[in-house]
Structures are given as C-alpha cells and as structure tokens.
C-alpha cells in the first residue's frame, strides 16, 4: 500500500523519537508533552523545515496512535449574512486541523464555530492521556486580523480543555497579543549535512543506493535547505538515472527553467518586443497556478545571479521587494510583475549605456517602462 506514496510521505517520521535533526528541540517538545500543563504553541520556520511533521509527532506523543487515524469530513458553516460555506475538515478523535486559506475572509466565523464546538465536547475516551483536545491551525500567518483578534480571549477562556497549535512560516504577521499567549517554537531548516544524512537513510530503505555524498550535497544546496523539495528532487533523480552518479544533473522544475529563460531574455534585450514575450511567459506561469510572489522572487534571483555589478544587483532586488509588496496588497498580479520587468529593463539599459556595454536589441525602453508603470498606477 506504500508503493504509491512519494518518498517524502512514505519516510516521514511519525514519532518524536524518530525525528532526525534538531535533537534539542525534540527533547524540549518531549518534556512539554510529558508535563501536564501543555501550552498553546506557535510553530514557525521556513517551508520544508518539517514543521508539519513535528506537529504530527507532538500529537502522537500526546495522544498515542489514535491521533494518526485521520478522517476528512465536509462541514457546513453559516455566515451572519446566511451564506453557507462548505469546508473539508481533517480530524482524529483527539484533534482537528484547519487551513484558513480554505475559508478566505470568513475565517473568524469558521474558526470560532469550530473552537466553541470543540471546547464543549470532551474526550470520549476516558483513558485518554490528556484532558484537552488540540486544534491545529495551518498557515496561521494567513489568518485575517479579525480572526486573530477573535482568538485572543478564546485562547484564554477555553484553556481548560482546548489547546491551539498554530503553524506558520513567519511570526511577523501574528499580532502581539497572540504571540504572548503561545509558546514560540522555531523550527529552522535542517543543515545541509543533516539533509544528506536523511537522504542517505531514505536511499538505503529504498535499496537504490549508493548515493554519492557530493550529489546529495548539491541537492541540499539547490533546494535552499528545503527538505521536502530535496527529497522530491532525489526521487526524480532516481527515475532519471540509476545508479546515481556524482556528476548527475540536479532535477529542476520546468517552471523554474521557464523563469530562467525569461531572466536571460530580459538581460539580453530591453525593448517592447521582449517585454511582450516576457509578459506572455508570466501569464502562462500564472495560469499554471504558480504563486505570483514566487514567480517574482524567483525571477529576481535569476536576474541578480546574472548581473555583475553589486550596485545594479541591489537596485534590482530593491525593485523586486517594492513590487512584491505592491503585488500582495494589489489585485492584479500581472500588472505588478510586468511593471517589475519593465523597471528592471530600464535600470539595466541605463547601466549598459553608462558603462558603454554594446546595446543588443532595438528601440528605446523609456516608452515601455512608462506603459508598465502607468498601468500599475491605475491599479492602485
């Protein structure tokens, strides 16, 4: 039955004892689970660092194997305006998981309904090791301010039989009063060495070794210390070539290559035609459901890697930060992505003129830059 699973899921540790890295953190979590007064928790760290896995292990440590028996049920909530919302809710007998991004702006209502319901129920299983149930809120940094404000007093009032574990990439968006009601648990990305160890263990269990350490190390580096990503790449690499080779190419996502080509294009010629082509590419990426901030960030990194002068690198990254911010508060992603590209073309062209680098392509850029920005301003 395991055959269909991806390696990332198949070899996911399912108890605190089996967790691979951050042994100090694991020990801390273990002693928290053993003590009676388990607090609310805010688990944060970069993606692919293993936050979700750790939370699942905590639940198992608290409640035993029953916490891993998950079921998914559709549940219906009603907004004050009598609109019905149907949401898939994952739960076990001991805990329930919710994802604010499934709920959108109505997250306060859904979360409050669920919390109140949970708080009014008790552990059916009298032998359960803990008196409380747990509500896991994934992507808690996406919670609206309204929903966060709603959690404050709830977290205090229902402390008797309810604990909340929030999981997020950053605490910057979590309001202070919530942070002070939680134990902050930072899960940093594993070191490259730790990642190599994990990969070696997986390869051993899959009997498809040997895996040259140098190749594993490259996977770790290229994944940006994101273990989930590294394991996915490892599995792809296995399909591409067996046995593994030291000089094997690191598998890349096709959308990443696509962005790389756009970056190369932008630096090759800065004119209306290129802008048009790049815009087409951007549209395609958006249509393939690549998250626009990720597109912008990846593009910026590809650009910066290909620019020599520090001063220009910095200018480009500053524009990237500016437009990524705009993109988050605006509505139409394409405007901001395109404006960013136009701006970069403008910066790069000016630089080439100043340093006498021969101009490639044809036509001026000022006009196009203007177009991109005007659109962008119309949108705000």
């Amino acid at each position, binding site marked *: 039955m395991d055959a269909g699973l991806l390696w990332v899921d198949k070899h996911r540790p399912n108890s605190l004892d089996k967790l691979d890295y951050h042994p100090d953190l694991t020990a801390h979590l273990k002693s928290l689970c053993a003590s009676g007064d388990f607090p609310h928790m805010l688990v944060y760290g970069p993606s692919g660092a293993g936050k979700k896995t750790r939370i699942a292990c905590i639940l198992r440590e608290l409640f035993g194997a029953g916490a891993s028996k998950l079921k998914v049920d559709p549940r219906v909530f009603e907004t004050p305006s009598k609109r019905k919302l149907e949401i898939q809710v994952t739960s076990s007998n001991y805990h329930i998981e919710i994802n604010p991004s499934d709920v959108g702006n109505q997250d306060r209502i859904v979360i409050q309904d669920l919390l109140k319901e949970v708080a009014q129920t008790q552990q059916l299983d009298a032998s359960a090791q803990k008196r409380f149930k747990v509500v896991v809120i994934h992507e808690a940094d996406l919670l609206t301010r309204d929903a966060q404000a709603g959690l404050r007093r709830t977290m205090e009032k229902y402390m008797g039989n309810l604990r909340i574990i929030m999981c997020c990439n950053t605490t910057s968006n979590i309001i202070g009063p919530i942070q002070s009601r939680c134990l902050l648990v*930072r899960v940093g*990305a594993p070191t490259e060495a730790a990642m190599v160890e994990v990969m070696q263990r997986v390869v051993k269990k899959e009997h498809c070794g040997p895996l040259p350490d140098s190749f594993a190390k490259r996977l770790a580096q290229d994944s940006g210390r994101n273990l989930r990503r590294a394991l996915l790449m490892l599995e792809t690499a296995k399909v591409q070539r067996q046995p593994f080779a030291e000089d094997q190419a690191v598998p890349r996502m096709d959308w990443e290559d696509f962005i790389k080509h756009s970056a190369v294009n932008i630096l090759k010629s800065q004119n209306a035609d290129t802008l048009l082509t790049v815009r087409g590419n951007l549209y395609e990426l958006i249509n393939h459901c690549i998250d626009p901030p990720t597109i912008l960030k990846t593009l910026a990194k590809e650009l910066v890697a290909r620019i020599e002068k520090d001063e220009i690198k910095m200018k480009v990254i500053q524009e990237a930060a500016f437009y990524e911010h705009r993109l988050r508060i605006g509505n139409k992603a394409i405007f901001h992505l395109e404006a960013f590209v136009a701006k970069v073309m403008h910066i790069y062209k000016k630089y080439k003129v100043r340093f006498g680098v021969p101009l490639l392509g044809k036509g001026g850029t000022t006009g196009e830059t203007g177009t991109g920005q005007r659109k962008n301003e119309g949108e705000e």
Partner: protein
Amino acid sequence: MASSFFAKRQPGPSNAAALAAQAAANKPWIEKYRPKTMDDISSQEQAVAVLKKTLESQNLPHLLFYGPPGTGKTSTILALARDIYGPEMVNSRVLELNASDERGIQVIREKVKNFARSTVSTNTSDHSVPPYKIIILDEADSMTADAQSALRRTMETYSKLTRFCLICNYVTRIIEPLASRCAKFRFRPLEEHHSKSRLELICLQEGVQISPEATLSLIRLSDGDLRKAIMFLQSASRLVGKGKEITVEVVSDVAGTVPESVIDGLEACWHTRDYNKISTEVTFAVREGHSAARILTQLHERLLRNDALTSLQKARMAEAFGDMDKALNDGADEELQLLNMMSRVSAIAA
C-alpha cells in the same frame, strides 16, 4: 463521521470535582496565576485604588480600560466582578462579549437587551450586591465604528440596569462619543520590580530555580507584558527540567531572540557594498527561521548604539527600517524585504 470528536460533553457528577482539580493543575501558568482578587493585581495601583473607591460608593460608572497586552485589563475586570457579586452570582450578573463573538450592531443590541431584561433576582437580605449587571466588551478596538456608535444608544437605554466595561489596547480606536461616556483607566506596562516580585512568587510556588540575571532578562525581553514573561518562564523551566537553574541563555532561547552572531553578521554588512555578502547573511538568517520582524527590532537596537554613524545616516537608515516594518505588516516576503533593507542601509552607511 465527526460524531466521536464532537460528542457532547456529558456531565459526570461522580468525578466532577476530581476533574476540576486536575484541570487546575493542568492549567498553563498564565491562567493558573491569573489574579483572583483586586489585591492580586500588581503594578496598576492607580487604577485599582480608584476602582476600589468607586465600589464603596455603590455607583459604578461605565468603564474603559486601555493599555498594552498582558498588563491585567481582563484580569482586573474579572476580579472586580468577583469582588462585587461574589463567586456564585458572578456568572449570572456578568456578560462577556469579546472579539470572537458576533458583534454586529443588531446582535449586540439583541444580546444586551435580553441580558439586561432578564430580571435581577434581588436578594433582599444581601444589601452588598448592587442592582446592576456588568457587560464586558473585551477587545473593543476590533469593533467597527458603526457598531460602536450604535452602542451609545444601547448604553443609555439600559443605563439603570447595566454597566459597560470596554477593554482595548488602543484607546484611539474607540470613537470619542463612546469613550467620553466612560471613566477611563490606563493600564501601564508593568514596572520591573512588580514583574519581578510576581515572577518570584511563581518560581517559589512551582519550585523553579532561576538566576537573578535570568529574571532580569526575562523582564527586559517581555517589555512590561507580564503574560509574556510568565509564558517565557514556564517554557524555560520545561526546557531545563526539574531541579536545574534557568540561565540567561535559556531565557533568550525561549524568547525567540535572534542569536547575537546572526545580528553581528548582518550588522557587519552595513559597512560594505557587497551584495553577495548581504545575500549570504540574509539567506542564512531566513533559513534558520528567525522572524524578520525580530531581526529588524534587534538591528534597530544596534543602530541606536552605533557611534560610527552620523545622525543623518541613522535617520535615513531608520526610514528604511520603517518601510520594511510596514511591508512586513502587509505580508510582504521576508527575504526580499530583508535584502532590500540591507542593501539600502549599506548604501547609506558604507
């Protein structure tokens, strides 16, 4: 089948008391050590004294409590209510509506009406219990201006039967006509010696050993927010285990402080214009999972202490910090924002 998870609570009379006792022992310290009476409230002498005085006169005005998180606002009103009504009656005489409840105009009006009307079972033998009920609107700053202005009428209509207590962090978010109907009480960040004695009390009762320097850094790191300090204390004591002493290092660990080495690395970049160096330091900090907002706060402390920079440079750098804070608040990408801020700052400082 969600039924097992959502099965209704069965009142079990046989072991209810035992359960209650166990629940108390299992409460995290921030709840376990919530002040039970007005006398337990530390540091807010002024507010407490005035409140006690008003109690004697039997005529409580509407109240507005404001101040930063974890300074005792909610605790004070709960303790006050208990002092007024005694532990048995407090539940029937106090209605709490907080940001988790639906607080549209209509709903508030309805709830207040029903609550105010339900007759106060006046116990004639007991003259110490005042005739009015109390309605607590906690986290009132998250109510819309419309709901707030509708509240004015409601407050007046039922003024014989009810007293309102509004609680918020930012008094400016309460509309003036509403605020002017209330006696205002400002809750200040706890003074160091008050936090200290409260923490020492907890340490004594829980058998926690902590070095004096660690207590001090606990207080410093929590900025007068006693709840935060207690939370840190509890996790620090779990981290070191029973019978061992809590040190300064443990405290900064549980407080999520970014290690000095990371901050050093970033500060060193200010004086270069080397993009790759900036990028290496930023990427490392982000991968380790440190919060960009924290990094910003700690870098800001470094900025203030840095003697090599002119006032003009500092001002311009502070501007970059401010922009970043705003962007983070809007949910912008932490890594890009750090890269942006660092490259701007390095252009100013180098």
